[in-house]
């Protein structure tokens, strides 16, 4: 080994890092023993290593002041608080949006369910005391059946010219409904005998929604519709599950605003 080869490894030799090949180390030691300049270099490197060791040892126990930890913990708490504040309104926003969407969907479904698809104006008076329609407003009674004939119910006074009243489809585009099955009204259908109508048994009117059936100052209409039988369960009425697939007749009391106010089921 010569001086040129020794200089690059002098630091490693002084640091005694153990990275050096044993043969190289022994060659370097032989060279140091023969070259006074390289021996001085090695001594200087060893002294420097020792000085580094002393400096490192002296600073070994140095720690950051406790203020730093206090400030960090305070910052951590503040960050956590900010994060919670930032996330809470977002959560509320989602909740409010979800509730609004549910209300909107419920309102739309209720509107579809409450509005009959076919109504026929009738000049007969309001059926019961529940409907206080003004004179001439024309509380209507429409009976819709699968067979199509218009029948009068025992609660209503049949109109004399009912069979001449033209059938009018008020909302032809809204004929679809999974809860209401409306059938076309046959305007020329004959009026059934009173004896058949008297055989019908109806429940009391059950309010629909939050509106009262008594607030019909502007008049109203009674609409006969057919519903799936399981609709009875919605109003807390007993349901025969064996006949759940069948339809059942119902009279829906519709206000002037087109919203259903009450319903009764007819057997």
């Amino acid at each position, binding site marked *: 080994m010569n001086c040129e080869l020794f200089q*690059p490894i002098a*630091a*490693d030799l002084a640091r005694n*890092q153990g*990275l050096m090949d044993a043969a190289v180390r022994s060659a370097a030691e032989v060279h140091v023993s023969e070259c006074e300049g390289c021996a001085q270099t090695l*001594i*200087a*490197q060893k*002294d*420097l*290593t*020792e*000085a*580094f060791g*002393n*400096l*490192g040892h*002296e*600073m*070994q126990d*140095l*720690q*950051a*002041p406790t*203020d*730093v*930890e206090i*400030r*960090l*913990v305070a*910052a*951590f*708490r503040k*960050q*956590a608080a900010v994060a919670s504040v930032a996330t809470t309104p977002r959560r509320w926003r989602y909740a409010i949006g979800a509730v609004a969407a549910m209300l909107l969907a419920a309102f739309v479904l209720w509107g579809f369910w409450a509005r009959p698809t076919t109504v026929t104006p009738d000049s007969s008076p309001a059926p019961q005391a529940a409907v206080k329609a003004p004179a001439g407003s024309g509380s209507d009674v429409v009976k819709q059946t699968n067979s199509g004939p218009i029948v009068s119910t025992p609660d209503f006074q049949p109109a004399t010219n009912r069979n001449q009243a033209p059938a009018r489809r008020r909302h032809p585009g809204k004929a679809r409904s999974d809860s209401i099955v409306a059938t076309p009204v046959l305007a020329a259908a004959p009026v059934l005998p009173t004896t058949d109508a008297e055989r019908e048994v109806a429940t009391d009117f059950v309010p629909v929604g939050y509106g009262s059936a008594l607030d019909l100052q502007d008049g109203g209409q009674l609409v006969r519709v057919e519903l799936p039988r399981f609709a009875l369960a919605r109003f807390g009425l007993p349901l025969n599950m064996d006949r759940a697939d069948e339809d059942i007749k119902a009279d829906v009391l519709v206000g002037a605003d087109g919203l259903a106010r009450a319903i009764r089921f007819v057997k």
Partner: protein
Amino acid sequence: MKEQKDPSDSELLQAMLAGDESALATLYRRRQGSVYRFALQMSGSTALAEDVTQDVFMALMRSGNSYDSDRGPLAWFLLGIARNVLRQRLGRERFYTSLADDAGGSSGASELVSVSDPLGELSRNETIEGVRKAVLSLPTRYREVVVLCELQELSYAEAAGVLGCAIGTVRSRLHRARGLLIGKLRPAIQEDEAADHVKAARCFA
């Protein structure tokens, strides 16, 4: 009885990121020393070292998710952040401590090095301040490897992990840094030797 195992740095980090304040405290107490000493040895300023230590752990709180345990221990990650913060701070503040500026001071290297065998006396306690200032006078890229390999006693591989460079780069930079340090200390020794002659002449006068 089963011995309770201390949580690893990664586990503490995850807990801290999940909002566990005690995990932050534990992790800080475990790792703040090396970060603080690295910053202090790099800058020579306790105030700056405090700020850097705080900035490092603040950065860990903000972006601790970017730590990848496959790339090395968390200690390396923290030292890497400290290095970047220091570079920014030193670049802004031009925080340099020149060995020449302090050569005539009471704690200068020249005064701490013996005349006959200057480097042989470096091991004495009085030389520590001189060596510290000599280290501070090094360019940053050399100072980093000296601080990491010599003062923090990391291996070449560990220092390379912190610095994000090859082991050979660390080795060559350290060799160069040591040569610079020896070169910086020798002129000071010669000046000190000359000053001693002047003092002696005055005494005889």
